[in-house]
């Protein structure tokens, strides 16, 4: 099974039924699989904070939800993470493409990468970093942890994990 299919299979096995996405080249295979699986209601969002609002509504409607996004968008989601997801204690797995890490060809992406973990740490968001392919085996446990503690949880997936560009 491809890593993209395995990730989505883990989402489904953990009853995630509503996923919102903002496009990303690294996560393209995951987004295609989210769209293809009938178990998941996929709603593409125009911006990541909007996507987190959609996820909050879906969660309150009884569907476990998740967001797929790039780390470059972390800045625009801080207010939403703090005043909606965390303030109302809602679970939110955030599968994040960690742009700006090793094998990154675009210099500007590094500018946000150097702040990514610091911001997540400042927000007290549990953060996991997938660097080697075998790191993906932890996703199932991370999802269970997220829905156990009702918190946003970040899963950073870098270029090495995805096998380079």
């Amino acid at each position: 099974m491809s890593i993209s299919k395995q990730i989505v299979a883990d989402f489904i096995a953990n009853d995630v039924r509503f996923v919102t996405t903002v496009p990303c080249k690294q996560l393209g295979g995951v987004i295609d699989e989210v769209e293809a699986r009938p178990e998941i209601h996929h709603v593409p969002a125009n911006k990541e904070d909007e996507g987190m609002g959609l996820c909050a509504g879906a969660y309150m409607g009884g569907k476990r939800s998740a967001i797929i996004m790039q780390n470059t968008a972390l800045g625009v989601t801080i207010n939403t993470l703090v005043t909606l997801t965390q303030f109302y204690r809602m679970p939110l797995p955030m599968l994040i493409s960690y742009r700006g890490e090793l094998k990154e060809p675009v210099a500007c992406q590094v500018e946000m990468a150097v702040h990514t973990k610091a911001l997540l740490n400042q927000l007290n968001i549990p953060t996991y970093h997938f660097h080697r392919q075998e790191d993906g085996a932890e996703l199932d446990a991370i999802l269970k942890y997220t829905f156990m503690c009702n918190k946003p949880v970040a899963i950073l997936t870098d270029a090495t994990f995805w096998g380079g560009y």
Partner: protein
Amino acid sequence: MIRSEVLREIAPVLREALVVCNIGLPSQELHMIDDQPSNFYMLGTMGLASSIGLGLALSQPKPVVAIDGDGSVLTNFGTLPTIANNVADNFVLLIIDNGSYGSTGDQPTYAGKKTSLAKVASACGCENVVEVQGAEAAEALRTALDSGKMTVLVVKCESGNIKVPVITMDPVVIRDRFMKAVRS
């Protein structure tokens, strides 16, 4: 007619639906006028009432009304194409358009100038867009809910605020009782 008077008019109709209410004075006013477990009060996160409402409507069958403001729609314009392209026929987006940022002191919005939110919603692909004056809001909301069609309802009214207490209910309590109302 000002926003709080519109809310007073529509409050009896809102009881029939799950309500996601916009940050600031709209939530405080609705909380004072007719607090219900089926009301989700936003205490922060300007702009996301329509997104939360759409996610809720897509995930369960009960009717959902998101009460938004013109300023909040302007801050999250991306919501309108998402709503248009992900049709939930149990969803009404009710925009109380008083042409001003009420909660921050009635500074004018562009919706009170050249920009028509109804036209923007239509241009984004929303198929049932209705614009009414404040006095017609309750009847228009009932019609929208009865239609079984996703509707964007723009209610035009005057700017102006009344004195209301802040909501002191804990956010987790608001969320928990709301989710119980969703399941009931």
